[in-house]
């Protein structure tokens, strides 16, 4: 048989998360002896080009985290045209009317669920600190242009509300770009407008966004004891914060395991291609809240 070649396409190649996925996919490639082709696909157009490109390289299949879930049908068609097997990772692909595409096995996390974990973590900490919820303001650093971003923050906000957090205390801070500086500027204004709150919590689509909110709060003298920010990702940016000598308002981060996603999806696809078994239709993994206290265990559990 031909040597096995597998593509691994991710939407934001520069993000540490996807870098990790790729890293663990490489591990699988080394173990199983197949070739891995990593391509970043920032948008639908590049995605289509990348799939064609894989076909030209005579790959047999690919793992994909598409820039948008609605690209499902395009992925399905392109794969079929080029006779490639597909497995999706992180984001479940859907068709034009929003139904998941059955022919593409999936392993992933639900952005909404991860967000919920963030919200629940915050509520637990609010309770632990015995704050009066009416005196707590919540900043949602929002980047709704990105559907996953919206899912995550919505999940977090919903969890807050479900626990009885007053909806009026939740303040949107739309960031213009997804970097820390823009989150800082957005949060800064939210803080200005709502000087009345004694304590603050912050959620965002990733660690960088929450970090921006934390820095903005520090700029106004709101330090670790009055601020709880929980990010998503748990990579370097979070690690830096959690290892600072003094605790900061960055309380923790919901860590998701890139290892399982990167490694397991490639292995599944490899097995599928070599006829050693079809992957399960859907596997959902969970995140873990990593804080100052438990970071070592969490990292270990997540295999990093």
């Amino acid at each position, binding site marked *: 048989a031909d040597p096995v070649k597998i593509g691994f396409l991710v939407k934001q190649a520069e993000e540490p998360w996807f870098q990790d996925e790729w890293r663990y996919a490489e591990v699988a490639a080394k173990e199983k002896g197949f070739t891995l082709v990593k391509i970043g696909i920032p948008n639908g*157009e590049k995605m289509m080009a990348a799939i*064609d490109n894989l076909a030209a*390289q005579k790959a047999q299949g690919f793992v994909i985290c598409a820039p*948008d879930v609605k690209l499902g049908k*395009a992925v399905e068609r392109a794969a079929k045209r080029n006779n490639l097997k597909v497995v999706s990772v992180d984001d479940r692909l859907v068709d034009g009317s929003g139904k998941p595409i059955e022919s593409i096995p999936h392993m992933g996390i639900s952005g909404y669920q991860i967000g919920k974990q963030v919200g629940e973590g915050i509520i637990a900490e609010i309770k632990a600190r015995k704050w009066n919820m009416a005196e707590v303001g919540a900043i949602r650093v929002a980047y709704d*242009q990105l559907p996953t971003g919206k899912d995550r923050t919505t999940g977090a906000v919903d969890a807050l509300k479900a626990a009885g957090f007053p909806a009026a205390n939740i303040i949107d801070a739309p960031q213009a770009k997804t970097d820390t500086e823009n989150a800082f500027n957005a949060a800064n204004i939210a803080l200005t407008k709502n000087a009345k709150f004694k304590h603050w919590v912050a959620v965002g689509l990733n660690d960088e966004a929450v970090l921006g909110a934390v820095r903005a709060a520090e700029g106004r003298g709101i330090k670790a004891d009055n601020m709880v920010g929980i990010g998503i990702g748990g990579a370097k940016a979070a690690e830096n914060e959690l290892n600072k000598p003094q605790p900061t308002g960055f309380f923790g981060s919901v860590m998701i395991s890139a290892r399982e996603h990167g490694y397991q999806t490639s292995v599944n696809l490899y097995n599928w291609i070599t006829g050693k078994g079809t992957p399960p239709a859907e596997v959902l993994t969970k995140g873990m809240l990593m804080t100052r206290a438990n970071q070592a265990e969490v990292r270990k559990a997540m295999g990093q």
Partner: protein
Amino acid sequence: MSTSQLNPVAAAPLVSRQWLSDYSMPLAYLVLFAVLSATVENFFSLTNVVGLMLSVAQIGMVACTMMLCLASRDFDLSVGSTIAFAGVLGAIVLERSGSVAIAVAAGLGAGALIGALNGVLIAYLRVNALIATLATMLMVRGLAFIVSKGQAVGINDDSFIDFGDTRIFGLPLPVLVAGACFVVFGILLNQTVFGRNTLAIGGNPEAARLAGVRVERLRVWIFLLQGVVTAMAGLILASRITSGQPNAAQGFELDVISACVLGGVSLQGGKARIFGVLIGVLIMGTVENVMNLLDVDAFYQYLMRGLILLIAVLLDQLKTRGERR
């Protein structure tokens, strides 16, 4: 220059230098292509070359009109947003009306409107082209998000989707459309009054005006055309990716402008060559393609892309160096 040039012998190096200068870019590309075919596995195969062309089909279409725009000493940053908006609008209209014709008309109409708005702002209200199109870029992107509520709009109509997939003589329709654009705009640039007047207003707007060219009207037309072609590219993209995506084609404008500049279109206006633009577009696509074939690390891709861009212009520069004192 001395009289030695009176005799035709001296003319020979001049002619060949002119020739070299005219064809240096295509030649460089041919050499590049040959080298890559020989060294990069899988590069020289039908699937890959077709894939390469498909990957630059959108850029190619829009580069044709961007060439006119730059040739007339203007600038358009709004093309990326227009692609997204036309795709989203087309998808929505398609969903509502169920008619491909109406959806396409809506998309193209929106593109024409956006283009005309740019044109009027720039030609008649004399707003700086950079700022005007930056503003429309933001507004149109906003509209794309608003009408789609920030979500991709799925397309279920198979006849619409097929458009992106259909192949004729082995070439996908989007590639054929892009090819047609190059032919049409090549003719428009070189064989019509429209094209010549475009170059004239880019080369010397005052001279064009004094010669009776209706400069303002022409500029509006150029932007309008640009809007329509861009919207068409947006619809084709939507068909290829089976959805209208409000955040599609971000940064597209820079790619298109770079392709044009690589192809020898001057930002100072007055200079444009359709063949050069084609080469520019192909270079952009080839670089991307080869990097993926070679599985270059994502971070090093930035480095490589920058380097290759530099090498391409430096090569192109060599020829003009001689001309400059």
